[in-house]
């Protein structure tokens, strides 16, 4: 296979290609940032940047879970309503349940995780299609939220609790810190652990993974449980930020969350993608919303612009070849 010189040069080329491949989702984002920094001098200020990060953190946290689900060749449509339910339960526990903040939050997280686990069990053990199971869960959790809250918002939390969503460390909002920590953990899990490797293997070729001795059911169950857990985390942050648990929070979030993941270059066919890409995808959505507001685009036109910009962003990315 050629001499040593050839080898190293080809290795180098391969490396560059892989690097570009990793950051190709960044091209669209970069273009948006550059254009925006010319159009508005408020855009590239620290407060605005922190603002963007804070705005994407709630969906971004769910997107980290969704990345794992999609990598394992699944899909989770229930994230928005699990978020709403976990948030409502946490709120209910605090306001009516008269238990400590800590226990209330724990209960909320447990609810999200348990229902995510249930998703995973139905999908891997009962072998039902992911789409249907999580769609059904979306409906069930939404209904449970309405039943639990009686259709009315639950409001009025302790100041201590409100810090989770509203506080800052230095100038950095706490939700941004939580998001960052979860991103890093997500990155580590996917890249450094056996479980992460198994996620890629199951998503890349489930049959082969099983024959190689991997407990594919367990991998699937776990990713859904994680997704449920992270939805609950988002739910807690959200109610803290709004100082109110809305029974109808998170409607249609699933599409935006999936969009973040896919914009970040993760393939819906499974087995291919990164958490770093998801961060970029989340920022594309965040910068987009922020820009449309900064530029004062009228709300009807915002929808049109949003669609067009997303198209252009992925178009820029796809200057790289696929397949």
């Amino acid at each position, binding site marked *: 296979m050629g001499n040593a010189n050839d080898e190293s040069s080809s290795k180098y080329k391969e490396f560059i290609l892989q690097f570009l491949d990793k950051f190709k989702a960044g091209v669209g984002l970069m273009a948006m940032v550059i254009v925006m920094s010319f159009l508005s001098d408020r855009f590239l200020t620290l407060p605005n940047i922190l603002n963007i990060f804070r705005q994407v953190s709630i969906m971004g946290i769910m997107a980290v879970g969704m990345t794992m689900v999609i990598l394992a060749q699944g899909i989770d449509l229930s994230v928005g309503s699990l978020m709403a339910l976990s948030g409502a339960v946490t709120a209910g526990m605090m306001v009516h349940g008269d238990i400590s903040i800590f226990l209330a939050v724990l209960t909320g997280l447990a609810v999200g995780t348990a229902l995510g686990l249930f998703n995973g069990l139905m999908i891997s053990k009962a072998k039902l299609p992911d789409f249907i199971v999580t769609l059904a869960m979306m409906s069930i959790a939404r209904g449970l939220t*309405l039943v639990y809250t009686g259709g009315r*918002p639950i*409001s*009025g939390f302790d100041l201590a609790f409100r810090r989770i969503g509203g506080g800052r460390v230095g100038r950095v909002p706490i939700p941004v810190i939580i998001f960052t920590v979860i991103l890093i953990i997500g990155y580590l899990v996917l890249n450094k652990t056996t479980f992460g490797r198994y996620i890629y293997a199951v998503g890349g070729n489930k049959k082969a993974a099983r024959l190689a001795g991997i407990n594919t059911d367990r991998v699937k169950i776990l990713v859904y449980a994680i997704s449920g857990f992270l939805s609950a985390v988002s739910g807690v942050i959200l109610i803290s930020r709004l100082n109110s648990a809305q029974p109808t929070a998170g409607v249609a979030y699933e599409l935006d969350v999936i969009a973040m993941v896919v914009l970040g270059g993760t393939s819906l066919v499974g087995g291919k993608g990164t958490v770093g890409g998801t961060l970029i995808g989340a920022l594309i959505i965040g910068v987009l919303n922020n820009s449309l507001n900064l530029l*004062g685009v*009228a*709300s009807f036109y915002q929808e049109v612009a949003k669609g067009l910009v997303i198209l252009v962003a992925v178009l820029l990315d796809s200057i790289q070849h696929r397949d």
Partner: protein
Amino acid sequence: YDVGLAISTLENPFFVDLADGAEETAEELGVNLTVVDAGDDAATQMNSVEDLVIQGMDLVAINPVDGDAIVPAIEEADMMNIPVITVDRGAETDVTAHIASDNVEGGMMAAEYIADQLENEGRLIELEGVPGTSAARERGEGFNEVMDEIEGIEIIDSQPADFSRSEGMSVMEDLLEAHEDIDAVFAHNDEMALGAIEAIDAAGLTDEIMVVGFDAIDDALTAIEDGTLEATIAQQPEEMGRLTVEMAVQLLDGEEVDEFVPVPLELITQ
């Protein structure tokens, strides 16, 4: 009696109160009440009204998603000789009875209060409810009628924000970019008003712009206490629900009822 109640959306606490009022009264009067929710989708509402008709309800009460789009469903009920009552929002056709706040009056109350506070001078924004609902149209009508008379007051923009909090926020964000020196905002309901307040707060203009809403939902009352919401026109959704069931029973008992039953309103401030 079997009575059906088709609600536009239970995602708004206002209607949850309305449904509660109806359910309580139904229990008291021994009426078998079925409530269906359309999730603010006109097509879904049409389907569920059809289901109520097929089910053989003695009377159907409707809180329409849209006054025009509900007409075909009402016509079907008519064909089966099932009487129809509309609640809170009207339909663009004749029905047996209509129960609602006097929304024109409510719009006027809001206008008069704002004009008073601004001493008849200022630049105003109007956030409209779901287009095609009588509630939105009539509140706008009453509001504009009063304001048109006052020289110093100018309504610089009216935009629909669909009675929803998130729409209220994003529309207000846009309007803040587009206009300067806004003195007051009138929103056709509290949800939109609360959304607008978020946008105003983010822009740091809380002290400059006063916001008035409509409904007096719980969150709005809290906001009034906090001083972020200036005032609201209290509707009595529970009362509407109660009246709906009572009237249904009267009608089915063969009694005469009025075609329009107004439900009293009240101005609430700090």
